[in-house]
């Protein structure tokens, strides 16, 4: 047994700050050049890419929304054909949910969580790189298909039999199903990384009651992903099997069942919306604390609220199926459980309000978005409570009322906090502040535009307009309201455009931010902006939930790590007692090869089941390359 001898001189203790930075950077940096860029496993670089890619998909999905609004602005309009419209709304929904909303939240976490818990890289950094490549490949598959008029046209939840072999000939439904596989593989990978990072790589002293609330949110979100996403994998794989090799999971003529699809989908689909929402909750908590200048009111209550939302999320799925003819008594149970979600949501709202109430709120742009969030999300929550009622829902299910509900909670509940979070963390990521003045315009335009766009949809729904219609007859008299909505959507779009512009401009011309421009309390602000490749020269040690507020003069840190290899601290789950000095893998090109091999297999398997057999050979080869020891210091115990 040879264990690398511990040379006392290579420990960081003996080095002065400059020498330490130099040596750490030599070990952790991503060199210049394309190859190194493809091989990097730095969570910050991958996180940045992830965030940028997700926002590209937001812009693309938003453009699709504008296209829909053009078509719907007038009755009997012919901006696009029925076939195109069906692809467009499916692409909009699938893109927004699977390529924007879920990934963007994970992307923020990939960047932020390691910094917030005070470690040097995410757990399983190569898996992280793999996850990003899979995500990009999934996006390319979906959008590539759309460009070639092969975009899915079955709605984002792809109900059978419409998506089955008989009613969806061609490859459009397979594209949808396989896009699911890509995005789920990547989401699951990130979830595993985050769980392990949060459990095992927290700074010494960061016991459970000192974990930043955003990190708590991401922990619960990751568990939701791990438990919910297998359901959609089972569903989409069964669909592909039905379509490709003639199984009968969803064929009632041969013992299958149509509603089985809906159960599987919504067992995933409902938690999915909290997978999007809970990270936003964490962002709101973070912003509220920093900008009301006080520790959060009701830390324990907020944590328990997030956890109980996560648990309850698995008991609600039937509320998407209230009109499918399930037994009424059973449905009423799901009314009760759905409404019960209002309790933890209420706890959160009230704790934030109490924090703001007893704090000294500073209306910087991020907090503006929090107020926009409160206004909008609470309204969306109220309509959620309405549609949770079985009889109420029989009138508004599958109408624009539901479209209004979910945009209020998705855009108001998740995108507004996200935009606030971007204004907040942009300086950390880029070293420059976004413009406070432009930010106010963005917040105003988006807030007003959003409400003018989506509020009238409630009324349209009650006035009988179903969703997913490519047009409507003039005599229904929905025309003027729809025109109003479409015009308002342009205001909303201009707000987003301004947001993108501000971000681009600030990359180069923003005011340099310094380490901690908002005087925020959590660890990501303890390092420089942007952070060095190794995040922290010496790993922080914490003794409170607000380390930078409680120790304003100096940061407590640990020494004793080796600077000549990638080393991180592993700590215990509950009280974050240091347990080991683990090595963290080096950059590697193999995750990219593995992702390419996997992508080829997945796309190929739309056409023949043998792809699974032959396609797994290159995957296995790439995986061996990935894990085979390379004789670097990190291989040592």
């Amino acid at each position, binding site marked *: 047994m040879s264990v690398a001898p511990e040379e006392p001189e290579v420990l960081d203790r003996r080095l002065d700050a400059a020498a330490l930075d130099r040596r750490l950077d030599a070990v952790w940096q991503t060199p210049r050049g394309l190859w190194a860029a493809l091989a990097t496993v730095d969570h910050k670089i991958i996180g940045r890419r992830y965030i940028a890619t997700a926002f590209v998909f937001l812009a693309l999905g938003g453009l699709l929304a504008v296209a829909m609004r053009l078509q719907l602005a007038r009755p009997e309009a012919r901006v696009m054909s029925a076939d195109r419209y069906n692809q467009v709304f499916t692409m909009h929904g699938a893109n927004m949910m699977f390529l924007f909303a879920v990934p963007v939240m994970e992307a923020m976490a990939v960047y932020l969580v390691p910094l917030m818990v005070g470690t040097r890289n995410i757990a399983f950094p190569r898996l992280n790189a793999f996850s990003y490549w899979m995500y990009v490949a999934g996006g390319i598959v979906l959008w590539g298909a759309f460009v070639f008029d092969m975009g899915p046209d079955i709605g984002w939840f792809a109900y059978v*039999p419409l998506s089955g072999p008989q009613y969806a000939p061609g490859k459009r439904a397979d594209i949808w199903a396989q896009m699911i596989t890509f995005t789920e593989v990547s989401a699951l990978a990130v979830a595993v990384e985050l769980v392990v990072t949060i459990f095992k790589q927290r700074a010494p002293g960061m016991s459970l009651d000192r974990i930043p609330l955003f990190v708590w949110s991401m922990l619960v979100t990751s568990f939701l992903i791990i438990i919910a996403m297998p359901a959609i994998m089972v569903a989409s794989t069964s669909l592909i099997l039905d379509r490709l090799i003639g199984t009968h999971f969803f064929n009632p003529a041969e013992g299958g069942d*149509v509603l089985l699809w809906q159960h599987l989908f919504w067992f995933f689909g409902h938690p999915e919306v909290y997978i999007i929402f809970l990270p936003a909750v964490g962002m709101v908590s973070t912003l509220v604390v920093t900008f009301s200048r006080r520790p959060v009111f009701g830390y324990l209550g907020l944590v328990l609220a997030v956890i109980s939302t996560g648990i309850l999320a698995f008991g609600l799925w039937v509320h998407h199926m209230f009109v499918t003819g399930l037994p009424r008594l059973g449905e009423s149970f799901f009314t009760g459980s759905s409404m019960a979600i209002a*309790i933890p949501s209420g706890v959160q709202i009230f704790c934030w309000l109490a924090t703001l109430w007893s704090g000294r709120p500073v209306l910087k742009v991020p907090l503006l978005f929090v*107020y926009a969030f409160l206004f909008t999300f609470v309204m969306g929550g109220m309509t959620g409570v309405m549609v949770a009622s079985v009889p109420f829902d*029989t009138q508004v299910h599958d109408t624009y009322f539901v479209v209004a509900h979910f945009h209020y909670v998705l855009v108001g509940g998740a995108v507004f906090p996200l935009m606030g979070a971007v204004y907040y963390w942009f300086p950390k990521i880029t070293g420059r502040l976004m413009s406070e003045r432009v930010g106010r315009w963005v917040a105003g335009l988006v807030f007003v535009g959003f409400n003018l766009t989506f509020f009238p949809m409630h009324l349209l729904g009650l006035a009988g307009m179903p969703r997913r219609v490519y047009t409507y007859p003039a005599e229904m008299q929905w025309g*003027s309201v729809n025109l109003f909505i479409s015009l308002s959507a342009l205001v909303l779009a201009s707000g987003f455009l301004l947001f993108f512009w501000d971000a681009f401009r600030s990359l180069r011309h923003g005011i340099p931010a310094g380490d901690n421009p*908002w005087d925020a309390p959590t660890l990501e602000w303890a390092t420089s902006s942007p952070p060095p490749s190794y995040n922290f020269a010496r790993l922080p040690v914490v003794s409170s939930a607000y380390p930078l507020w409680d120790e304003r003069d100096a940061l407590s840190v640990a020494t004793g790590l080796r600077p000549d290899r990638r080393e991180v601290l592993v700590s215990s789950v509950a009280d974050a007692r240091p347990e080991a000095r683990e090595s963290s893998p080096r950059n590697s090109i193999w995750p990219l090869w593995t992702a390419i091999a996997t992508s080829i297999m997945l796309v190929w398997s739309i056409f023949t089941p043998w792809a699974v057999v032959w396609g797994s050979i290159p995957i296995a080869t790439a995986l061996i390359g990935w894990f085979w020891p390379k004789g670097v210091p990190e291989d040592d115990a």
Partner: protein
Amino acid sequence: MTARPLRLPALAAVLACGGCGTPWQSALHPGGAQAGGLLDLITIFTAVCGIVWLLVMIVTLLTLRRRRAGIEAPLPRDEGTERRPRRAVQAAVATTVVIIAGLTLLSFFVTRGLTADDPQALVVRVRAYQWWWEFTYQDPRPDQAFTVANEIHVPVGRPVRFLLEAPDVIHSFWVPSLAGKQDLIPGRSNEITLVADQPGVYRGQCAQFCGLQHAHMAFLVIAEPPDRFAAWQVAQRQPAPEPATDEASVGRRIFLARQCAACHTIQGTTASGTLGPDLTHVASRRYIAAGLLPTTRGSLAAWTADPQTLKPGNNMPMVPLGSDELSAVSAYLTSLR
């Protein structure tokens, strides 16, 4: 498409919803007890939730009363000052629990009210196809049963039980002015019971996305006094009238000779296809092609000439006909009252 001037007053009325929708397809304009009960429920929920929302917003705005212009040093933690907010939060959570418990109970009792069964009910079997509706009025005497498409008549005051079936994909049966919706699901049978309390024309529309022409899958429910309804029923049971003009009988010959008869049924002729709507009394209906066009001789001709342009992707192919043939067929179809 006719260009209409912008109606600015309608835009202004958006918030009041005076300007959106028509009474014949709207949850806000009930024509029966069920939809009326649902509207009451909707009103109560909206009022309660609206008030809660308002209260929360008032508190939200009040949090700004101590706002500062710039970032100051963080406030020290002081357990003493947390007591009042803690009480407030506890009270708010308790109120939330009470309110949602109340709403859940309310919802539960309204649900129970929805499923009242009535042995007196008229029974209609509904089969929803991509993208049209078939209704068969059941009768204990099989020869008295009859089939219509896309338009039904119901007697005012008498419950009608609809047995819902979908031979192809999922559709949803929804007449908002009369009741909530219910899905039609392949391999399963659902049902829904409606009562129209006021005579009138109510429009229903498929609410579940069912493919290309989901947007054009409407039907009409015409509620009329029992005697008018009975008369209608008698008329619908009759076979198709004999063509009264020469042109119409030529039309009938063409109809029976071409593919039409393979898909459509016309009682009293040899046409007995089942892939398309029953046309026995097609001209007695207000619209053709599931709400797409008002029934006129012109629209029947236009539809027959080119269904794929009018309703792209629908399951009726274009059957090539000369213009004389077309005119004759449309004359015949117009005579099917």
